[in-house]
């Protein structure tokens, strides 16, 4: 034994190793248990100045910024940024998104489209975030941020035309339903793979800085996809170049059947991933419209003042299935969504508006009916252009267009061969 460093262990029998594989607290058949999710009091988390040294605000990665308390009051240092009109508009956006989802889910079940992904329980995240952006800013979304379009005034009919792949589909039937693209509305083309957009958002923001522009970018990702390489690539580029970008993580607890602990590993929170890169990293109650907006505004201000990027984790819960292709009761208790301690974003904002005397149950019911009519009318208009298997559809020619700006000869030959 000449390599002395192992000599001390040589006489001791070593205990066998074992592999740690994390498991959620509860599986189907068990009682939902969120006691491990620490929920701080609304209003209890401090609001640092936007130019505070990120090293001094590491605590924000381990708490949850909340504004609306149980009674429906808006409290604490993050409250007070939105007028009653703003809040009314926010409620309307979330209700529109929820009604839109209901109709499109039903349309999928009726065979009018192949696929759908809903936002149930997560409406506040994208709807409230959108209010912090200015015209010209760009989102790089995932498939669960249609709230950005709804709250940004993008026509619902165009969203439906895309979902139905009909002859008015702005994307010519090329894309899977809900994989929208709306450049003029600050909404980058969605890809069906994961995390690729996150680092692209950083590049867009770097370009804005290179060109001495004033626009900022927002990157979006889910809890599960933070495990992808592109997430880490985004953090290192954003950190190095102090890109004017908001790095959003929507932690809705579930990545299809995989609970968030698999992607989070030993890191206390997803927000804490940003600390190693020196990024200000905040956690916010994703079911609290006011808190989401306040944090988004804070992060947007940092970006606009050229101070740098911010990482934000929205703590929320995916009430529905991942998509129309899975059944959550196979991997989590059915009652879990009701046990989720942060409640429902629509009901919480509604209760706040009632609390401040700006709203009532009667008016809420009226608005629900009015919104349903709006969505049904839009659907009728969209269906007049066809649905996936009936009525108007994009042409076969559209399939060959747009691969390049100018169609090369080999593709022209193939199109001719196809007879179109």
């Amino acid at each position: 034994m000449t390599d002395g460093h192992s000599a001390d262990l040589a006489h001791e029998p070593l205990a066998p190793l074992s592999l740690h594989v994390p498991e959620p607290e509860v599986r189907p058949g068990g009682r939902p248990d969120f006691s491990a999710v620490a929920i701080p009091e609304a209003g209890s988390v401090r609001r640092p100045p936007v130019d505070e040294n990120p090293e001094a605000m590491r605590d924000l990665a381990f708490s949850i910024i909340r504004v609306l308390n149980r009674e429906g009051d808006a409290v604490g240092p993050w409250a007070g940024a939105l007028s009653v009109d703003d809040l009314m508009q926010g409620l309307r956006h979330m209700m529109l998104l929820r009604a839109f989802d209901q109709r499109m889910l039903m349309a999928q079940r009726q065979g009018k489209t192949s696929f759908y992904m809903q936002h149930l329980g997560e409406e506040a995240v994208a709807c409230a975030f959108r209010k912090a952006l200015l015209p010209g800013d760009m989102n790089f979304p995932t498939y669960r941020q249609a709230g950005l379009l709804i709250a940004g005034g993008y026509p619902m009919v165009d969203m439906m035309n895309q979902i139905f792949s009909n002859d008015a589909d702005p994307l010519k039937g090329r894309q899977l339903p809900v994989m929208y693209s709306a450049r003029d509305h600050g909404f980058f083309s969605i890809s069906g793979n994961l995390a690729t957009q996150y680092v692209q958002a950083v590049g867009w923001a770097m370009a804005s800085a290179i060109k001495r522009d004033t626009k900022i970018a927002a990157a979006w990702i889910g809890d599960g996809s933070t495990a992808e390489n592109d997430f880490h690539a985004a953090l290192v580029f954003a950190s190095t170049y102090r890109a004017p970008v908001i790095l959003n993580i929507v932690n809705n607890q579930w990545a299809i059947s995989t609970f968030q602990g698999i992607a989070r590993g030993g890191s206390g929170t997803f927000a804490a991933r940003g600390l190693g890169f020196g990024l200000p990293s905040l956690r916010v109650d994703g079911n609290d419209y006011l808190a989401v907006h306040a944090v988004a505004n804070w992060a947007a201000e940092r970006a606009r003042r050229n101070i740098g990027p911010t990482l934000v984790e929205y703590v929320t819960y995916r009430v529905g299935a991942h998509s129309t292709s899975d059944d959550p009761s196979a991997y989590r208790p059915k009652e879990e969504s009701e046990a989720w301690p942060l409640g429902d974003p629509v009901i919480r904002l509604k209760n706040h508006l009632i609390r401040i005397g700006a709203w009532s149950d009667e008016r809420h019911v009226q608005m629900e009916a009015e919104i349903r009519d709006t969505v049904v009318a839009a659907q009728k208009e969209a269906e007049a252009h066809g649905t996936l298997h009936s009525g108007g559809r994009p042409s076969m020619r559209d399939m060959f267009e747009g691969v390049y700006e100018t169609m090369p000869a080999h593709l022209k030959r193939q199109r001719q061969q196809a007879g179109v």
Partner: protein
Amino acid sequence: MTRMTMVEAIRSALDVSMARDDEVVVFGEDVGYFGGVFRCTQGLQQTYGRTRCFDVPINESGIVGVAIGMAAYGLKPCVEIQFADYMYPAYDQITQEAARLRYRSNGQFTCPITIRMPTGGGIFGGQTHSQSPEALFTHVCGLQVVVPSNPYDAKGLLIASIENPDPVIFLEPKRLYNGPFDGHHDRPVTSWAGHPLGEVPSEHYTVPLGKAVVRRPGSAVTVLAYGTMVHVAEAAAQETGIDAEVVDLRTLLPLDLETIVASVQKTGRCMVVHEATLTSGFGAELVTLVQEHCFYHLEAPVVRVAGWDTPYPHAQEWDYFPSPARVGQALREMMEA
């Protein structure tokens, strides 16, 4: 013999392999508790425990990278990439690491891993759930590339892949998971229950890698196909009445040149059919080999029918997917040539 779907056959292959060999471990996204989004690993975690069948973080290069590390230790990982379209982040690990480890270490380290991935279209999956990337793997020396077309082969080929000492890319045509599909999307779906190749032994057996099989004997023209296109080619032969010999390649790399050459020398005509885009597709390799080995037997130019050179579309799925009508038309033209 038991009746199995292709999903059940793949699950049975994994089960048999894990039962026989403690070194076999299975992991991937949603693969553990849930049993995979296509249910190919259902029940394995319950049977073999969480350290032999488990969920992983969503990171494909991580999945393949840790599989390589485990293989270097001595395990035989069989991992799942949820859709072939999701494999691109793992491409570096697959092509520059797994494929070359034996060569560059002169055999000190080897890489007996199997990478399963659902491939191909026919389910309205759009551009990121429908791709056929086989040519990206057949271009890489050190890899083996397998594409089964039925439950019997799927099980036997998967067991052979897991037992193989070198890395195997195992492409599962997802449209065949629950039944054969001949491209007639407007007809009622069929199940494997009524198909002879849905009869699968429940015990261990292998189908050797590198061996093609004549699925439909014929004398007029040879059709080289694999995966879903085997069924499309058979349908086209039947519907046109052209006596085509359909060769199911089963393994693309290493390729069973002998079976191909024997068939083409017999028929004097050859057509290649694949779902993947035409340009630089695996068909180009096949056509070249046929030209090299059968030139003086050929009575007509060798023809390819393939996916168009566009990203896989959503609404135009059936315009894109090589149909029995398109294959049949090409067969007729070839016979007139």
